[in-house]
């Protein structure tokens, strides 16, 4: 049962990664694309981590997965901000590069 829930969570996480990638490809400008990457991929990773933690069950693995998810969320938000800031400062003409 737990294995089933774990696999369902990993499947749901994959869907968010796909949606994030679709957003990256379809959204019109860099800022909207960043929304897709920071938010959808962040939740995708959290769901896959949760599912993997359920499947593994060892305390060390769970702690590692939690740390990785926390750092990924932190660096994702920070990198998104830095990329957006750089694009703004670089000027409007190459903002959509």
């Amino acid at each position, binding site marked *: 049962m737990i294995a089933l829930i774990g696999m369902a969570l990993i499947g749901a996480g994959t*869907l*968010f990664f796909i*949606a*994030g990638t*679709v*957003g990256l490809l*379809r*959204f*019109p*400008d860099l*800022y*909207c694309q*960043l*929304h*897709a990457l*920071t*938010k*959808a991929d*962040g*939740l*995708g990773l*959290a769901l896959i981590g949760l599912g993997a933690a359920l499947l593994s069950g060892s305390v*060390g693995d769970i*702690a*590692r997965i939690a*740390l*990785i998810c926390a750092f990924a*969320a*932190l660096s994702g*938000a*920070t990198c*998104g*901000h830095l990329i*957006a*800031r750089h694009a*703004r400062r670089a000027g409007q003409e190459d903002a959509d590069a």
Partner: protein
Amino acid sequence: MKSFQALDDGLAVAGQHRKPAPLVRMPRQRLRRLTFPAVILAVIWGVLADWRLESWLFGGPAVLLALWLLTLLPPARRWTMAPLAALRFAGWFAVQAVRGAVDVSLRAVSPRMPLNPGFRSWRTTLPEGTPRIMLANAVSLLPGTLSAEIEGQRLVIHLLDCHTDLAAEIGRLEARIAAVFNLPAGKETAA
């Protein structure tokens, strides 16, 4: 501090009045300031590498490098945190992050792709330092908002839908962050 002074005097008496190594010069207070981060970083590495002895070949230098970078940063103000409010914030934030991800995913896969993007500016009442950084990072995970710049009190926010009620969304977030750091909500706080 006193013992370092004595060491300096000793060197002077011995007639070798050269500059001591920077490590010796480092005030004890600064060393103590690095102890807590050193323990935290070592534990993080230990957990990540499953406490394998040979992993410290990389982990040791990485921890030292991080500590050295820490000494280059200006000392941060210490914030008191309210544990209960922090817990409540974590729960609320998790729900918002899920909402944000679902919102942007639905927009991405919807054939119509409902977007009405634009920038808006927000004047934050949170003091400089950790609370403001936390706000900027949290804004990026809230539904439809992305922090694009912080200049002092001004936060430039990119919106997927520029008709979003910023005051409601960010205002609520600000109040919750203020509660985490025991700050009076909605009031200017001198940094």
